[in-house]
């Protein structure tokens, strides 16, 4: 089970009304390397990973939902008061036609989230290598969004999220090392 804390993992502040940034950010909401994909990937893989690293996948998978919540807060702030004209200007009219200003799990090109974005191979090394790649891809996505955004407050939150991708990648790399470790192996000479 989970407990919920009614606050964000890191404060989300947006300095200017720029709905276009929401269009970029939605990639991390419902995109292939986004936070939803990450959370679902880890929380599903954890059942068939060796005991030593189950807790790691649970912890990181849980944190990804906290990141998803931050992205949702950003998108919501950027779009909730946008006029239809601003929506059009931001290139969000397709989203608006279908969803109004509500959020939806799709990527920046409007492609809906699909479960094929994640994998579960049942081979611990294959799964952890996928997880490492996913963290690096999410890190890169944050870099590209920071490149596109000139909102300093938003970029501050994005820098935090990018740093978390680095820490998660490091922990997954360590998990691979733990599983490679030969200390427990019975040696016969």
């Amino acid at each position, binding site marked *: 089970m989970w407990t919920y804390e009614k606050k964000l993992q890191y404060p989300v502040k947006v300095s200017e009304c720029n709905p276009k940034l929401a269009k970029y950010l939605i990639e991390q909401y419902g995109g292939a390397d986004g936070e939803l994909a990450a959370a679902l990937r880890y929380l599903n893989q954890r059942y068939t990973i060796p005991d030593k690293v189950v807790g790691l996948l649970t912890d990181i998978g849980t944190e990804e939902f906290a990141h998803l919540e931050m992205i949702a807060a950003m998108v919501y702030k950027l779009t909730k008061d946008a006029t239809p004209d601003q929506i059009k200007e931001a290139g969000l009219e397709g989203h608006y036609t279908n969803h109004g200003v509500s959020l939806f799990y799709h990527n920046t090109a409007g492609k809906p989230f699909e479960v094929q974005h994640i994998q579960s191979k049942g081979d611990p090394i294959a799964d952890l290598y996928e997880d490492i790649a996913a963290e690096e891809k999410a*890190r890169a996505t944050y870099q590209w969004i920071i490149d596109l955004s000139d909102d300093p407050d938003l970029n501050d939150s994005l820098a935090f999220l990018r740093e978390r991708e680095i820490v998660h990648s490091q922990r997954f790399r360590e998990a691979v090392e733990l599983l490679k470790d030969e200390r427990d192996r019975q040696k016969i000479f």
Partner: protein
Amino acid sequence: MSGSKSYKPYVSPNDPCDPIKEKSYQTPPHLYMGLQKKDLEQYSPEEALKKGTLWPALFDSYKGFPRKTDGKESNR
């Protein structure tokens, strides 16, 4: 070692856009860490919550794509 690396790709005289003569990519510190050593230096709890990591050895800042302001490259 960590930070970023750069390289100079071939620039054709027929390239349609102003060439970016030097391209860079990020190489954050975790790529070089292996299993994290015990007793590394830590940030204070407040600082760690702000930075996104407890460990200075894992902190990496991203400056963003260099922007031109007044003809000069800026890292914001």
